[in-house]
């Protein structure tokens, strides 16, 4: 696979918007042409070559090309925005809006990711080896659901911030670490798997889709009803061992209660009362 490396050797101290640097736009260009591409640095419009050291071999077709960012990558905003094929790898962290509106291809981040990772993406794969900030795979602030992620996969090997999958409609988000409050806020479809713990309010205002919390969840929102206990489930071909308590909701958002919130019972002994409720051992408090 031909690799094109862009190294940011000097700290620009302001955000650098690299939405133009995706395989779809670079494929077929020579190195010289690539270094003449425009890029916004703060409020100035510069050429890519002024800022980055551009090395490697360009490819003629986007799906064959791999773009690698190096150096002070924390300053990069909108990495891999609207990319539809090929691969982008960042050797370090990225700023906000990485993989926004992504339509395909692969984005790998070997460090932490900023706000709105994979916002509104429709297909493709994002893998983050650090932690991610708020609103992974989410919609923008204020938009009515479902304007979030439509498809594709986001895998975060670290922790995630608040509101994972805000208003999402499809696709899969897997968080290996823990997450902050309100995963699956206003979601309408898709799956969120949090292997660590969650700070609370999981699935608030959800009307569809699944939120699975393997670790500890302090409380269940009062607008969720307990449904059943399942021994295990499958998420993206991967088996999640249970037993899992399944809740339906959110009754506040829709009386149909289309959303499913699943919580591992082993790691949440304080939710035992719900299991007793299903078994008929205790009466519901009204």
């Amino acid at each position, binding site marked *: 696979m031909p690799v094109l490396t862009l190294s940011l050797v000097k700290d620009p101290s302001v955000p650098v918007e690299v939405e133009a640097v995706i395989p779809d736009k670079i494929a077929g260009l020579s190195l010289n042409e690539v270094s003449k591409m425009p890029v916004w640095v703060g409020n100035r419009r510069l050429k890519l070559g002024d800022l980055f050291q551009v090395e490697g071999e360009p490819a003629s077709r986007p799906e064959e090309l791999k773009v690698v960012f190096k150096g002070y990558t924390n300053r990069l905003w909108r990495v891999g925005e609207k990319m539809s094929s090929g691969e982008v790898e960042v050797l370090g962290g990225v700023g906000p809006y990485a993989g926004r509106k992504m339509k395909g291809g692969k984005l790998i981040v070997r460090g932490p990711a900023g706000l709105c990772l994979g916002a509104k993406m429709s297909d493709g794969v994002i893998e983050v080896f650090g932690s991610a900030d708020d609103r992974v795979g989410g919609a*923008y*602030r*204020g*938009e*009515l659901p479902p304007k979030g992620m439509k498809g594709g996969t986001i895998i975060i090997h670290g922790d995630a911030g608040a509101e994972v999958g805000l208003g999402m409609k499809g696709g899969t988000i897997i968080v290996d670490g823990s997450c902050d409050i309100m995963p699956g806020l206003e979601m309408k479809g898709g799956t969120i798997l949090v292997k660590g713990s969650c700070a609370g309010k999981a699935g608030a205002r959800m009307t569809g889709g699944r939120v699975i919390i393997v670790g500890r969840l302090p409380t269940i929102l009062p607008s969720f009803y307990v449904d059943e206990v399942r021994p295990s489930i499958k998420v993206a071909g991967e088996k999640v061992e249970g037993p899992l308590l399944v809740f339906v909701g959110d009754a506040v*958002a829709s009386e149909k209660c289309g959303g499913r919130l699943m919580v591992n019972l082993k790691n949440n002994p304080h939710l035992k009362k719900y299991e007793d409720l299903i078994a008929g051992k205790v009466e519901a408090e009204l």
Partner: protein
Amino acid sequence: MRREPLIIKGGYVIDPLNKVDCEVMDIGISDGKIVDPSTIEGKAKVIDAKGKLVMPGGIDLHTHVAGPKFNAGRIMTPQDHRRSLIKATLMSRSGVGLTVPSTTFIGYRYAQMGWTTIVEPATPAFKTRHTHEELDDIPIVDKACLPLFGSSRIVMELVSKGDLEALKAYVAWALKSVKGYGIKIVNPGASEPTWWTRCIGLDLDDQLPELGITPRDIVRALCKVSIDLKLPHPIHVHCNKLGFPGNYVSTLKTMDCVSDLYKGGKPIIHITHVQFTGYAGTSWANLASGGEEIAKYLNAHEHVTVDLGQVVFGSILTMTADLPFEFVLFHIMMGKLHGTMTESEVTAGVVPYAYRKNNYVNTVQWCIGLDVALLAKDPWKIVFSTDNPNAGRFTKYPTALSWLVSKKAREEVMAEVNRRGLKHAALPSIDREYTLYDVAIVTSAGPAKLLGLENRKGHLGVGADADVAIYDLNPKEVDVSRDYKAFVKAFRRAYCTIKSGVVVVKEGKVVEPDVYGATYYVDATKMVDKAVYDGTVKRLKETFNQYYSVSFSNYIIDDKELRNPVKVEAG
């Protein structure tokens, strides 16, 4: 600011208040006023308006542009702001917003369309200081605001006691204190019993709890007050049961409940956004247009005027001082709701909404406004508005006006909307088209007369304020009913807008952004007996902390707090 004398030469002038219809005339402007052009001949700068349309600047009688609920709307719609960044230039300030734009953008866009006066029609008297702060920041246009009285606890108690003299004194005091221009009544009486109306709406003859009065009593009492105080603008009523199917009956009852108070002369009641209160039918499933009945009533009676609240398809934000209805709408939309209760005065709510062409209800709503406008024979009884931003954004005015002037424009929309909805309205069978003269009536001369500002606004006679809009449209060559696109293009960006004798817009671009218009308010205290007035204010001062969390002296807004206040004496 350059206030050099100007002469607008050779334009086709339309000036309904002076009965000028498309005549080639010169108009002279000196020191912010219209003057006889022969007096300034030679020393004045000439604006060549040959083959262009010259009209008095537009007056928007009902547009929500400032105040606490408008700000709540701004907070609620960050997604709108993201889509609509307006960059600062050397000439003008930056801004954001589609449905709830920045204050600067409101002024610029109104001026760019040739509108020069706007009225914020619903501001809680208690929070009017905020409204004035925002109005002061809107550049170019002249402003006024109407405080809400319809659900105020003080008003309801005075009506319940039957103490009309004290009510007169209170209204005069409140208007002067908060610098308001007239009486706005929103869903009279409904603020407090919001939760026991059980989402069916309070009707005109429903009893209010504890007080022993009905909304009818409130409307009648405030109408009497407005007549006795000789306020320049009649009571501005948002009817009961707004937004519920079958509410056109309530609207007709509201119009009729003050008909016996009419003694000739100016209209005594203004029904606002009549589209929202003109629904026939019994449920959302069989909603129909009640526009025909309302137009019939308008044709038969002289005491009432209406503004349209014409629907323009697209996404909007509904904001009204009618929380019960917003609560119902929120449960239809299941999106966002902002609701607030302002001390003892009023409740208000904000809910985002979208009018869609394929929707049955939205199609009927679109038809109602046009039904009323086209079936009412006298355009002086109609004021054009979209109740910005409730039924459509004010930037869509040219499109909405094109439906009035051109049947072809209507038919093109009718081809796209819901078929079943069209069957429940009179619109498809209406052939009437407004002339440009009628357009000038519904957009400037009519509202000026209704605001009682016909001496200074809405016409181009000698002595009027020099608020002039010049549109690049030759009325003798272009037939707007066939070529409505030319009409929309011309009205979307005025060729030239003159505000108080200053050229503020040239060829659609704002060239003089740092002009600030006046804020009009009414002083009616002289119309009340001195002893009654002093007694009422004294009693109010003593009991003020029962109603409000602020002190009496903090409630009153001083003249100095406004950028450019202009007092209008009642009577």
